[in-house]
């Protein structure tokens, strides 16, 4: 099923609507997505070229069952082996892939599973990304928490037992600048043992500042590595610049962060190529920065407010499982996070095969943890980025994971 992304809000002025339609329909009205905007730092790096040359030459249809079997028998897989495992030829080998993935996961992580929760502190956004609930043309309740509200949210989350937090914002430098995010992170250090951010990409100096504020992990989603497709989905705003986003993790490591995470948003373009690019992006980063902890995610498209029809197209659960097994076998040491975009059943299964970290007690809205955790009414809340699927609380998740024979781990980290 193809996605119909474009939705008009009845609250837009005629001028805004006209501009929106022009961006959507007239490619010449859009800026060059491969050109850096003013203030965006350019770093010297060969990672992009390495990843993209492998992706551009990838033809999933040429791989055969033999290639898959050969890959599964090898101890250390080459890029070619990874390509085979991500190809349609590997689909009949899903069970064997899962068996191998499970062995690797157990070897490197034992039976542990890490738990975390995201905290959205603002949903203002300056980008027009057609599939995202926060996009600047989508009519939603906007909100930015002040420090008092942030602290209140953190208390509610910390009281639930959670020790790792991921701080998120919409991508608006004007409404949520780096200083604001840094102050939120300093607060987070008071309540949580481990703090990560998933915010708009910034320059090395800003990552260094955030690291000093207590952040050690940076997640950036490339959305799609298909630059042409990317251009048609990210129509306006700084996020439109594809290469600046690509280099974000590397800038974060240059700024002193301990670890980085990334992935494509599966369902936007050819998922096999995007999965290959995601894995290689992290692979080459770790090769260049051997001390870096790398982690992969695997988000699939989800419905958003005002557009319930958005779906992950041809990426079914089997395909998602295939991708995650391929990631695990190719990168046995990498963290793999599976978010609440996926169902409870899928997450219960995948943590036994490949995933090492899952979220719990999730809200993608703003300032609504108290109402979601305790049922207490709150006056002002900001709307969600997307609809979650697995709504289990921290407590429920902890007991479910124990019930699956896994050891939930709330923290395995020290800020040094």
């Amino acid at each position, binding site marked *: 099923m193809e996605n119909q992304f474009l939705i008009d809000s009845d609250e837009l002025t005629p001028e805004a609507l006209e501009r929106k339609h022009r961006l959507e329909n007239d490619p010449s009205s859009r800026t060059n997505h491969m050109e850096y905007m003013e203030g965006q730092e350019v770093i010297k790096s060969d990672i992009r070229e390495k990843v993209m040359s492998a992706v551009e030459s990838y033809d999933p249809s040429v791989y055969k069952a033999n290639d898959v079997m050969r890959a599964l028998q090898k101890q250390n897989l080459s890029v070619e082996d990874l390509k085979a495992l991500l190809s349609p030829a590997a689909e009949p080998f899903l069970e064997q892939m899962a068996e191998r993935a499970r062995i690797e996961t157990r070897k490197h992580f034992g039976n*542990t599973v890490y738990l975390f929760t995201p905290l959205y502190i603002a949903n203002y956004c300056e980008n027009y990304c057609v599939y995202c609930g926060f996009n600047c043309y989508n009519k939603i309740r906007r909100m930015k928490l002040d420090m008092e509200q942030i602290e209140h949210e953190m208390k509610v989350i910390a009281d639930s037992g959670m020790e790792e937090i991921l701080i998120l914002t919409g991508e608006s430098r004007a409404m949520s600048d780096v200083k604001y995010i840094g102050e939120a992170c300093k607060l987070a250090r008071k309540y949580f043992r481990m703090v990560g951010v998933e915010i708009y990409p910034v320059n090395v100096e800003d990552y260094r500042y955030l690291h000093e504020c207590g952040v050690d992990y940076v997640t950036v989603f490339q959305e799609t590595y298909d630059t042409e497709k990317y251009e048609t989905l990210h129509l306006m705003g700084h996020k439109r610049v594809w290469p600046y986003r690509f280099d974000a993790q590397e800038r974060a490591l240059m700024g002193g962060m301990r670890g980085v995470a990334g992935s494509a948003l599966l369902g936007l373009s050819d998922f096999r190529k995007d999965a290959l690019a995601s894995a290689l992006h992290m692979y080459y980063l770790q090769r260049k920065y051997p*001390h870096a902890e790398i982690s992969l995610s695997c988000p699939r498209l989800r419905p958003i407010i005002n557009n319930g029809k958005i779906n992950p197209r041809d990426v079914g659960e089997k395909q998602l499982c295939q991708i995650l097994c391929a990631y695990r076998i190719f990168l046995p040491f990498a963290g793999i996070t599976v978010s609440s975009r996926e169902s409870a059943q899928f997450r219960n299964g995948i943590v036994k095969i490949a995933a090492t970290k899952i979220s719990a007690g999730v809200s993608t809205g703003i300032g609504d943890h108290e109402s979601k955790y305790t049922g207490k009414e709150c006056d002002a809340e900001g709307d969600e980025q997307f609809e979650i699927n697995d709504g289990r609380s921290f407590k429920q998740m902890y007991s479910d994971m124990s019930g699956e024979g*896994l050891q939930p781990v709330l923290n395995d*980290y020290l800020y*040094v």
Partner: protein
Amino acid sequence: MENDKLVIAGHEFTSRFILGSGKYSLSLIEAAVKYAGAEIITCAVRRANTKEHENILDFIPKGVTLLPNTSGARNADEAVRIARLARELGCGDFVKIEIMRDTKYLLPDNAETVRATEILAKEGFIVMPYMYPDLNTARDLVNAGAATVMPLASPIGSNKGLATKDFIQILIDEIDLPIIVDAGIGRPSQACEAMEMGAAAVMSNTALATAGDLPAMAEAFRKAVEAGRQAYLSGLGRVLVRGAAPSDTLTGFLRD
């Protein structure tokens, strides 16, 4: 065998099997300790850096010596800070130095390990450094004040066994401190082999964590380590390179 003790900085232990704790359910730690007969158990300080919810330290049985490790440290300074934190947390004076700046193989950084050992030994820690089996580094560790030397058998979690066997043997032969083989031991037979070589002790985590029946595997390791130690103490039989010994010796013609 009865009076055979593992002595680390004056502390005596009967068991020569050191247990890891990070890769299996907290509820199994007690059984693992019991069946393995372990008297020392390692625990990552970063893993113990948690609030009241199921702290791993609470699951370590009384009477067992806790060996906190500095995993997560990327250089000597970080290892030193983690070791000091361990002491503040009440983990005692033992510390296992683990310094990795490679997240793929988790291979230790020998140079930084020597540096951290020197600082921590001066602060009164009983320092047990994890290292890549290199004789020069081992000598540096001795001079830096290490209590033991802990060479890796193969990469952590690989279960590949004694890939560095010949180099570990050199350490056993040349270093006067206890040599404790750490990392990569995947089977009881490999643990036994390390002990036959003269290792003072063996450490394992993944091999137990990935076993079908953890307590049973813990017991298998205990027996293997004991068997290997006994064989070492008994003096292994000669293994002749070229078959049987000749009855007519090559030097029989010599008259005085």
